[in-house]
């Protein structure tokens, strides 16, 4: 019994199952040496990793040199992209990809300057480099597998497993393709230099260069190159294998050379085997010895419709259309353009796609070279596919399940082990595109697997969210409890007398202010309106409209059985009626809401007024004494805002009168309100600076006011409010007034409002809403469509008049709404 190594040295071969012998047709392109074509004027360099793992280093208009790196990234599978020639980046945009789908990918368009100037290349002697340096050089050179799959080479060469055997793949089993054949014939020494580097990195016991027996010249050249290479004696050999498709497949080649099978779902490195393409070895040599990144490759341009078939050095990124033009391509009707060989290559519909690192062949066959399109016929279960399958699958069972979209059953027949070599389709007497079915099934399975992962993630996130909400709720409850306890404690310690005193004082104050209340209610009203016209107006308008829309959607459409005939007869009228009734209903609801809000307003307003009153008083006092600059600024801003909002208000309203009226007052009201509010804080800090204790007390008072519950516990609030003013009262009157006012607010209308500010906003929003709806109501009653148009025009007015960004947004939203409503109206028609 010979060991594996002895058998390798003997050149023993094993049988790979299945396989076919399609016509080779390699003599079309392998007769002349690899030559160069004139440089293309424009290059397309796809940068698909940008945005995911990489960053783009160049910008439109920038000049780049040949070999200059265009992207930067540090992911594991990241490979840098290099400029294929010197020139200018003229665009960075999605361009159709060199992929079976032809989907656009982000690409750099580089206009060549024709000089083809290299950037600075770092030439080094490999013996001076460490292994890690070599690996990083290979990575930075952007070297990917040149056999077609374009898997990053540095990963293969940096494997954790112990490697016993390196197979250099020069099999090239696909018909037509001869790029590796020519490369081996002409550059065997360079390839061997690359192999030496691979040998150094992986230190395998044997290196086998596998070549099919239809390429005797290449085998001869490689054998000679081995003889004068620096590889250790007897560690490398050329093994000639019988010609059969697909013996160049990685798994098949391993089986032929070693008799071992790569376990399903595993990498060959787990068997201690690495397979590298001869082109990759050449590129490694170029990168290490000359510092050249992978910017060009040998491409076989062949097929009977290419009049100068052969192998050419083409810069990566050369558009296929350009390359074809240079070799006298004359398309026939129904021309197919195949990237790769006829067995595994994909047809592209658009020739303006770049040549990629894995593009080894462009095939432009005449119609008699390839099978004509024929309809798929019934499978007769002849089993030829199973005989041809190199992976020992049962293609017809896979087909059966894939066609029925029973992908899980297809997977149970090991669909994932299909290498898509196309042998089954080749032998199929019924012209069934089996591989296509498998690809679709595989992608469906992949999507399914991904969705499963995503679903699992979604589930976890959902559960995490539930957990978070639960935790928050518990935390809130705990806090509330704590606060309640505190309040309880406070209440016990508070002085009844103080409460009484405070109550008395409050009453007195209220009485004193009652004169002003009416007057100030107006102002407050206006202020509320102006507030709503202020940044919230647009928002609330949008909200109101969205609500109106939802309400309209909520009412059942007039499509019930008894309505049907009626609707057919008089659909327009019916719809109009319906829309009117809807609007009426909305209007009624709005009116109700308005009434309610109005009722609330009185309360809100009183409190607000008080606040403003006191605040302004304190402001005036403090302003004069402290001379705060900031306060002034704030006031100025407020004024400016008010002015703007006034404009908005005018533009926004059709009746105008009401708001014009309002806006005139707004100016002052807003100024005072906003200014004062800001100054309240100022005043507070100032007071604080005067007296720390007072500030603390104030803060406590404020907090108390905030916390005072809505309906119940009024006495608690009262007590706390009264207790504090006493403390404060003794020290600073200003502070007292502010805090006590706060308390009054809480006292005055504890049902609706926790904070005066919130209350004001709510009131404003409600008002604005009501108003808007009133408008829409009136116009809608006239007719739905006219409403849409008027609103559209209104909003346009706003658009032009208003400077406020939010208003613009609201206008856009309103427009969209109007459009939607119009569509709905049409639909109903």
């Amino acid at each position, binding site marked *: 019994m010979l060991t594996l190594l002895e058998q390798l040295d003997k050149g023993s071969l094993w049988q790979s199952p299945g396989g076919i012998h399609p016509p080779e047709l390699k003599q079309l392109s392998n007769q002349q040496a690899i030559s160069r074509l004139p440089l293309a004027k424009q290059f397309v360099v796809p940068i698909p990793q940008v945005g995911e793992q990489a960053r783009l280093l160049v910008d439109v208009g920038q000049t780049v040199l040949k070999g200059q790196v265009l992207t930067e990234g540090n992911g594991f599978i990241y490979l840098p992209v290099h400029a294929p020639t010197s020139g200018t980046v003229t665009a960075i945009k999605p361009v159709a990809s060199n992929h079976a789908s032809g989907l656009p990918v982000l690409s750099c368009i580089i206009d060549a300057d024709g000089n083809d100037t290299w950037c600075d290349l770092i030439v080094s002697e490999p013996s001076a480099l460490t292994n890690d340096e070599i690996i990083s050089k290979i990575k930075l050179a952007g070297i990917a597998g040149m056999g077609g799959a374009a898997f990053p080479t540095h990963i293969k060469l940096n494997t954790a497993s112990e490697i016993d055997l390196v197979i250099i793949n020069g099999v090239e089993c696909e018909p037509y393709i001869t790029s590796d054949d020519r490369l081996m014939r002409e550059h065997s020494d360079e390839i061997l230099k690359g192999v030496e580097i691979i040998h150094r990195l992986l230190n395998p016991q044997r290196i086998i260069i596998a070549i099919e027996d239809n390429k005797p010249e290449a085998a001869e050249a490689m054998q000679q190159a081995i003889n004068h290479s620096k590889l250790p004696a007897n560690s490398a050999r050329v093994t000639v294998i019988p010609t059969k498709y697909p013996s160049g497949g990685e798994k098949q080649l391993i089986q032929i050379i070693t008799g071992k099978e790569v376990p399903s779902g595993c990498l060959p490195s787990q068997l201690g085997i690495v397979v590298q393409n001869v082109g990759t070895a050449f590129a490694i040599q170029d990168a290490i010895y000359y510092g050249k990144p992978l910017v060009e490759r040998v491409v076989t341009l062949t097929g009977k419709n290419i009049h100068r078939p052969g192998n050419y050095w083409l810069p990566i990124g050369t558009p296929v259309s350009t390359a074809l033009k240079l070799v006298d391509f004359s398309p026939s009707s129904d021309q197919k353009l195949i990237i790769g060989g006829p067995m595994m290559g994909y047809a592209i519909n658009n020739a303006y796609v770049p040549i990629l690192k894995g593009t080894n062949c462009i095939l432009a066959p005449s119609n008699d070279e390839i099978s004509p399109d024929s309809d798929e016929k019934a499978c007769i279960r002849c089993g030829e596919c199973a005989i041809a399958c190199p992976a020992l699958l049962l293609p017809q069972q896979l087909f059966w399940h894939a066609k029925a979209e029973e992908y899980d059953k297809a997977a149970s027949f090991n669909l994932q082990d299909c290498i898509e070599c196309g042998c089954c389709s080749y032998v199929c007497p019924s012209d069934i595109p089996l591989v296509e079915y498998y690809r679709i099934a595989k*992608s469906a399975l992949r999507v399914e697997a991904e969705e499963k992962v995503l*679903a699992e993630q979604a589930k976890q996130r959902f559960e995490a969210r539930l957990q978070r909400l639960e935790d928050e709720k518990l935390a809130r409850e705990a806090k509330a409890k704590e606060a309640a306890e505190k309040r309880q404690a406070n209440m016990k310690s508070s002085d009844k007398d103080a409460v009484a005193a405070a109550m008395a004082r409050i009453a007195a104050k209220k009485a004193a202010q009652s004169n002003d209340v009416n007057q100030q209610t107006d102002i407050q009203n206006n202020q509320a309106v102006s507030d709503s016209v202020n940044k919230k107006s647009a928002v609330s308008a949008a909200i109101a409209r969205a609500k109106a829309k939802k309400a309209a959607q909520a009412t059942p459409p007039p499509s019930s059985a008894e309505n049907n005939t009626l609707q057919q007869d008089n659909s327009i009228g019916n719809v109009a009626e319906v829309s009117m009734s809807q609007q009426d209903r909305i209007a009624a609801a709005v009116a109700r809401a308005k009434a309610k809000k109005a009722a609330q307003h009185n309360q809100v307003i009183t409190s607000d007024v008080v606040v403003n009153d006191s605040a302004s008083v304190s402001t005036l006092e403090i302003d004069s004494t402290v001379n705060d600059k900031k306060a002034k600024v704030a006031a100025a801003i407020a004024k400016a805002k008010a002015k703007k909002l006034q404009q908005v208000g005018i533009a926004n309203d059709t009746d105008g009168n009401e708001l014009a009226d309002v806006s005139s007052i707004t100016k002052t009201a807003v100024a005072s309100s906003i200014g004062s509010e800001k100054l309240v804080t100022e005043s507070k800090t100032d007071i604080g600076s005067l007296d720390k204790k007072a500030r603390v007390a104030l803060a406590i008072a404020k907090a108390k006011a905030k916390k005072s519950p809505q309906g119940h516990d009024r006495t608690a609030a009262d007590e706390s409010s009264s207790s504090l003013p006493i403390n404060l009262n003794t020290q600073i009157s200003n502070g007292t007034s502010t805090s006590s006012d706060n308390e009054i607010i809480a006292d005055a209308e504890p049902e609706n409002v926790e904070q005066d500010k919130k209350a004001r906003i709510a009131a404003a929003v409600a008002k604005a809403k009501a108003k808007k709806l009133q408008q829409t109501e009136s116009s809608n009653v006239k007719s739905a469509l006219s409403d849409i148009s008027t609103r559209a025009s209104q909003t346009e007015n706003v658009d032009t008049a208003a400077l406020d960004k939010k208003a613009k947004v609201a206008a856009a939203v309103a427009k969209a709404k109007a459009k939607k409503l119009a569509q709905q109206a049409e639909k109903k028609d």
Partner: protein
Amino acid sequence: MMTSIFIAVAVLTIAAIVFGIILGFAADKFKVEGNPIIDQVEALLPQTQCGQCGYPGCRPYAEAIANGDKVNKCPPGGTATMEKLAELMGVEPEPLNQEAQEAVKKVAYIREDECIGCTKCIQACPVDAILGAGKLMHTVIAKDCTGCDLCVEPCPVDCIDMLPVETTLKNWDWKLNAIPVTLVSESLEDR
């Protein structure tokens, strides 16, 4: 005669005891933890947590199915999921009770300059896939969005769109006949 009756009774009794013991051991030894059917059902559900079934999430619906609820209440899963559920539960497949959504997977997208920062969509999102704070613009973490639609309704300014997931080279489905044959403009080709 009597003895044979006694023998029969005795044999039956002994047999009953023996089998009872065996069954008891079996019940103990092969005890099933939890209710695996719920997990199986849940594994089939799409985990969008959209609540369109009327339950607050996929797990509750899975529990409901295990307790005999209908299998046709999951629009995001579509007919395929319904059929799998029907097969698992051994019931007849029924048509979905809501209009089946198009099979296209969608994700929410917030038109960011129109967002007013109301946080309502954040609260509606069952998988916390919307990022943002009050009065600040929000955005959707597209990879975590399940396309459940729940954020569209609460948005006061209607700035959330459900956009179909873009086809890329990675998720392309290999359906060749779906490729539009486009003519590349000659100018581009000639440059």
